[in-house]
């Protein structure tokens, strides 16, 4: 290959990287992210994202060059990285220069002076050369990284990712540490700044991970084998210890995390609960239900109307008595809505159920039914659950005094949600191994054959649909008491889409997958408030990347794992 070839290629790659960086700037990400630090006083999140783009561009250009001119032409590869990084910076610099002459804000809302300030490091147009230089150095770093031996690449990548993770969630870790006592508070303040890690913290995290990673690659294999050779009792103890640790963190976290994060955790728990429900309908029986939010709304409104002290409360029964009613009402709604549409297959079912979700929302918020459901004003004054003397069906007109423990805070409701999620996980697990579970999976695979084997399609599908609906109803019920007021406007289609996505990302049909998916898709964006503005962009990206690189999900079910990794098994099966 000729030398010009690789240079031209690097320039193209660099311009591509520049376009991506420009895109990130123009959607407003850079400016929003610049309010957060990765390392305090050193680098902001906005700068980090742009530099990461340059590093990646350099890395890709270098990799392409190694294919063009050969593995061992280090100088060429470094040049390629430098050029690509430079081009990325040049694209941004040209943008700044253009923005200085012409007002492009009329078209690109986010091309603000603030953005130019960030891109020129507060120096104005005279500082426009800084960015290409830094970007070129970043590209060079990306290219140099590839020249490192594999044994060095891994710990460095891990350490960088860990540092980034620590910085992103610094708010969470900081609060948790501070709540542990004064000694911990000192440590927290040493490691974490207001919105990122401190320089000292960054060094500690980075080198700690590097050391652990190196040690692991040196001794890790022997640790693994010694664990594998443990006697059965030892393995069980180890597993129990792991479960206990996870349980301890899961149950203890909301207590030490403060109210905001507690609220996020409750939301995650609610979505886990609904994910487990939809997992029966979609994961087991293969029925794509996009109207899941309808049953969530029905559950929420049932609890609202039965327990509220507000103007629309019909009864003032206790939360505990209202929940089973809400579940039954949601289930009945599942029956009524499911009966006409379950003859419809595949994509058509998705559209039909999507319609239901919207109908329920519009009816609940309509003026027509406002005297029952409050219309746009919603139902307010919903009771909190009370642990204590239960008077389930007494109607009192004044707000009830709880003569026990009132579960008023989000942290308290969290335990209600966790208990409900555990119950549902247990039910889902038992159902999956049952005759009914088999019938669902048979329907998912081939409706006609399942029918010929004796599966009553309508009845079996209806059961899947109703159970999913019941669990959505339970989720809605807990949501109602958590928020204390419900509005039709919170019953958006996006709730259904969230639940479907978290199942797909976690792993269809897998129960732990639902938990992982909910944490990844619901929890993380809520915790990163800066990110939540771009949630759906990142959502889409995550889904596309997931489908391309890990279609079975983050934590797939056994069957999905076997299906996608059956190559070894099937080669010998040819007959």
């Amino acid at each position, binding site marked *: 290959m000729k030398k010009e070839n690789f240079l031209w290629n690097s320039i193209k790659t660099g311009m591509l990287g520049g376009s991506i960086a420009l895109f990130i700037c123009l959607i407003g990400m850079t400016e929003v992210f610049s309010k957060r630090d990765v390392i305090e006083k050193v680098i902001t999140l906005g700068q980090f994202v742009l530099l990461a783009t340059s590093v990646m561009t350099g890395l890709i250009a270098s990799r392409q060059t190694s294919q063009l001119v050969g593995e061992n032409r280090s100088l060429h590869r470094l040049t390629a990285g430098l050029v690509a990084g430079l081009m990325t910076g040049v694209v941004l610099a040209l943008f700044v220069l253009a923005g200085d002459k012409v007002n492009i804000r009329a078209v690109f809302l986010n091309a603000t002076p603030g953005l130019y300030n960030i891109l020129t490091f507060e120096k104005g147009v005279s500082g426009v050369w800084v960015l290409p230089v830094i970007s070129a150095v970043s590209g060079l770093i990306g290219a140099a990284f590839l020249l490192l031996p594999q044994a060095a690449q891994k710990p460095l990548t891990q350490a960088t990712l860990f540092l980034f993770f620590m910085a992103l969630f610094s708010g969470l870790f900081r609060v948790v540490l501070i709540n542990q006592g004064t000694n911990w508070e000192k440590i927290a303040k040493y490691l974490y700044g207001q919105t990122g890690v401190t320089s000292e913290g960054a060094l500690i995290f980075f080198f700690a991970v590097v050391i652990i990673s190196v040690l692991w690659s040196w001794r890790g294999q022997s640790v693994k084998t010694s664990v594998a050779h443990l006697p059965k009792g030892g393995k069980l103890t180890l597993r129990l210890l792991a479960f206990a640790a996870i349980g301890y963190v899961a149950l203890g976290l909301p207590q030490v995390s403060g109210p905001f994060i507690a609220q996020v955790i409750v939301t995650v728990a609610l979505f886990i609960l609904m994910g487990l429900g939809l997992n029966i309908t979609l994961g087991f029986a293969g029925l794509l239900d996009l109207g899941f939010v309808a049953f969530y709304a029905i559950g929420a409104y049932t609890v609202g109307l039965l327990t509220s002290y507000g103007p629309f409360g019909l009864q003032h029964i206790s939360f505990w008595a209202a929940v089973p009613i809400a579940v039954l009402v949601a289930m009945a709604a599942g029956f009524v809505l499911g009966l006409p549409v379950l003859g419809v297959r595949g994509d058509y079912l998705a559209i039909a159920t999507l319609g239901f979700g919207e109908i329920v929302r519009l009816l609940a918020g309509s003026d027509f039914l406002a005297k029952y459901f409050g219309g746009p004003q919603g139902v307010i004054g919903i009771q909190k659950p009370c642990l204590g003397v239960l008077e389930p069906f007494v109607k009192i007109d004044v707000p009830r005094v709880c003569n026990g423990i009132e579960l008023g805070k989000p942290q308290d409701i969290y335990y209600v949600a966790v208990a409900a999620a555990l119950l549902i996980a247990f039910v889902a697990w038992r159902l999956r191994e049952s005759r009914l579970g088999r*019938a669902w*999976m048979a329907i*998912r695979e081939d409706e006609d054959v399942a029918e*010929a084997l004796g599966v009553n399609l309508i009845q079996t599908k209806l059961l899947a649909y109703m159970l999913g609906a019941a669990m959505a109803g339970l989720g809605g019920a807990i949501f109602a008491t958590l928020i204390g007021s419900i509005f039709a406007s919170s019953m958006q289609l996006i709730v259904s889409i969230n639940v479907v996505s978290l199942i797909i990302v976690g792993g269809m049909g897998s129960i732990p997958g639902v938990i992982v998916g909910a944490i990844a898709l619901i929890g993380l964006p809520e915790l990163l408030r800066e990110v939540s503005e771009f949630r759906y962009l990142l959502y889409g990206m995550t889904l596309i990347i997931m489908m391309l690189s890990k279609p079975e999900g983050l934590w797939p079910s056994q*069957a999905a794992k076997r299906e996608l990794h059956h190559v070894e*098994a099937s080669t010998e*099966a*040819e007959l």
Partner: protein
Amino acid sequence: MSMLTVENAHTYYGNIHALKGINITIEKGEIVTLIGGNGAGKTTTLRTISGLLKPREGDITYEDESLLKYKAHEIVYKGISMVPEGRGVFARLTVTENLEMGAYSLSNKQDMGNNMERVFNLFPRLKERRSQLAGTLSGGEQQMLATGRALMADPRLLLMDEPSMGLAPVLVELIFETIEQINKTGVTILLVEQNALMALSIAHRGYVLQTGEIVISDTAQNLKDNPTVQKAYLGME
């Protein structure tokens, strides 16, 4: 009285008249084959008997009772099982799970265990692969699985749709030997085949289906000797 009688059955796909009044009788213990070209209505006949399609006209009588009043999923409880066209195994379930689904209509767990043992005896290959996903089996193994799954329901009448489709000649022979073996255990078989020569070599009687109508019906031996059949379906001049 015959085991199964199809009388003047007319079946439609929408407005397409797929079966134009066919008559078939099957006696207990027989292997009856239905031969014919693509689109002749062979699969439609099987789907009509198994209830997945309902005839607009005519009647189907099985063991002195009309099948028309039963839904598709109820018919298996009457003792009729189907091996569907293209095998139709549940790709993402294991071999064992597929077989268990075959016994869905049985209420007794004990029977299921016994039947599974019988199927494994008939197809030792399936026993070796019992925890493998059905989708990872070879074509021949999938055919064995589909057949075994149908046998799990303890059928008295087995409907088989093109068991030889897409299989190597060695395997076709193996499958047909197994069909004879199943028949000897007292299961009546209605076999739909494009491979007319193989089908007629194991069947007692046969029907030739052409564009939704039965054109010839005779013993298997006579059909093999019939010049029309030889020319059209056996590739002989």
